[in-house]
């Protein structure tokens, strides 16, 4: 116990905890729509789009010869990652709408292209050139390395995205339930979906920089999937998803400090533990009915 109190006395742990909770909250809320719309692959796709964006940013700085100077672009990889992820998100929605391909197929295409582009850009940069971005951090995150400025960015993105998602919750939820019924009742579901994809791109790009591109999808999918097993309404699912995400972040972060393990891993494993607990609770509470209810999804 003393060790845990000790952990919380470090400013880097406090920043990590706040950043983790904010990221878990916005991903928990967004994840409900992602899971119900069967877009679980979206988190991976847009996180890797952010990776491609960071590769592009590093490449541009390298070829323009700015790598030896103090380049703002590389200190703030979000400046490239967010617009790149935003373009990818809108591109996914547009290509899906204009080709008739399923969302997962289109996301798979954008995922592969973004990774290939990112790897190509990073591979062109000689290893002895300092580009200000740690490749390992991009892939696996650096939540313990969150700075004060990062925290402000995350807080602003969280506030804006929560305001949008909560403000439009009734409309997005209706369109998620049935697009046709929502349109028949005057909701502009196409515009709403593009907006949802855009919000998802910003949330995922910002989150991926903290929790890592590889583990990003877990933040979006596992809490919402666990919540789906327990919830009897979409509001319940949303609340439980946020609770699982936040709880897993707190437990995972403290655990990483105690056992000296990578925090990204302990957080995701904590999410997985809560998911299994939710599955066991659902089985105990609802029996076979819960399996039948979720089988269709």
């Amino acid at each position, binding site marked *: 116990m003393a060790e845990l109190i000790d952990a919380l006395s470090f400013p880097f742990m406090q920043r990590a905890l706040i950043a983790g909770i904010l990221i878990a909250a916005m991903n928990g809320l967004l994840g409900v729509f992602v899971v119900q719309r069967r877009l679980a692959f979206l988190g991976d796709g847009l996180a890797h789009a952010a990776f491609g964006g960071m590769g592009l940013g590093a490449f541009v700085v390298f070829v323009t010869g700015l790598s030896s100077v103090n380049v703002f672009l590389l200190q703030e990889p979000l400046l490239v990652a967010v617009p790149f992820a935003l373009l990818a998100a809108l591109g996914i929605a547009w290509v899906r709408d204009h080709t008739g391909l399923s969302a997962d197929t289109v996301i798979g295409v954008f995922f592969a292209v973004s990774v290939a582009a990112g790897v190509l850009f990073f591979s062109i940069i000689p290893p002895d050139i300092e580009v200000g971005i740690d490749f390992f951090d991009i892939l696996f995150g650096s939540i313990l390395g969150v700075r004060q400025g990062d925290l402000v960015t995350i807080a602003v993105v969280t506030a804006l995205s929560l305001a949008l998602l909560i403000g439009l*919750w009734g409309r997005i939820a209706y369109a998620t339930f049935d697009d046709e019924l929502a349109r028949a009742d005057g909701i502009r579901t196409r515009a709403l979906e593009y907006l949802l994809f855009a919000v998802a791109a910003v949330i995922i790009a910002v989150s991926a920089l903290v929790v890592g591109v590889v583990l990003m999808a877990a933040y979006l999918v596992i809490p919402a999937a666990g919540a789906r097993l327990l919830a009897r309404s979409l509001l319940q699912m949303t609340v439980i998803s946020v609770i699982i995400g936040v709880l897993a972040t707190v437990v995972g972060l403290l655990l990483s400090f105690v056992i000296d393990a990578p925090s990204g891993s302990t957080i995701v494993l904590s999410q997985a533990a809560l998911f299994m607990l939710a599955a066991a609770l659902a089985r105990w509470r609802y029996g076979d009915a819960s399996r039948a209810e979720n089988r269709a999804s």
Partner: protein
Amino acid sequence: MRYGDAEILSDITLDLEPGHFLAVVGPNGAGKSTLFKVALGLVKPQRGHAAIFGHHAGVAPERIGYVPQLKTFDRSFPALARDLVVSGLRRRWPARTTTRERQLAREALDLVGAAGLAQRPLARLSGGELQRAFLARAIVRRPDIILLDEPATGVDFLAEHDLYDLLEGYQAETGAAVAMITHDLAAARYHADRVAVLNRTIHGFGTPEEVLCEPCLREAYGHQHHDHGLLTF
């Protein structure tokens, strides 16, 4: 109304008075569902305009109660039957429901003989129960017309029979008009007092006796070499 190069619907006017029950029949690909989508404002005509109640289609959704085909619905959505009914009232998905909304939802479910389903998750409803919940969702807003797209699909004979009883009872009480798409010519004959035979355009519109006759159906369905037993009155 066009889809690619093919003309789906053209030059259609259906005059349905309050209290009447219209069945829209026609072969697959005739444009029946498209006709409803146009009326709901979901599909815009390429030329001319679509109107319902004398206004452009889609401008008065509160006057239309729509019951979609059950087969298109995702049953894994976490919601209670009451949430579904309140969505028809609020025209948004309800995060929480008010006492007034719960009361109206209960009344609508009661009207369709499904009062006990309010707290039941959608995933645990049978086809017939789900049909009733969707019907309650349609009538909770007290619409001037109810549109049903193949309401018999996915429900058994008894549930289908109950559905027609409920619709007729609701019509008698409120004077609302009902329009349904069906492939079941017998149901059209026995339950509707108006029938529209559709295949890209209207091939017949009138009472079942006037319209469900061999020449009219042959023209719409394009069958030349065999008879339908149902065509004999």
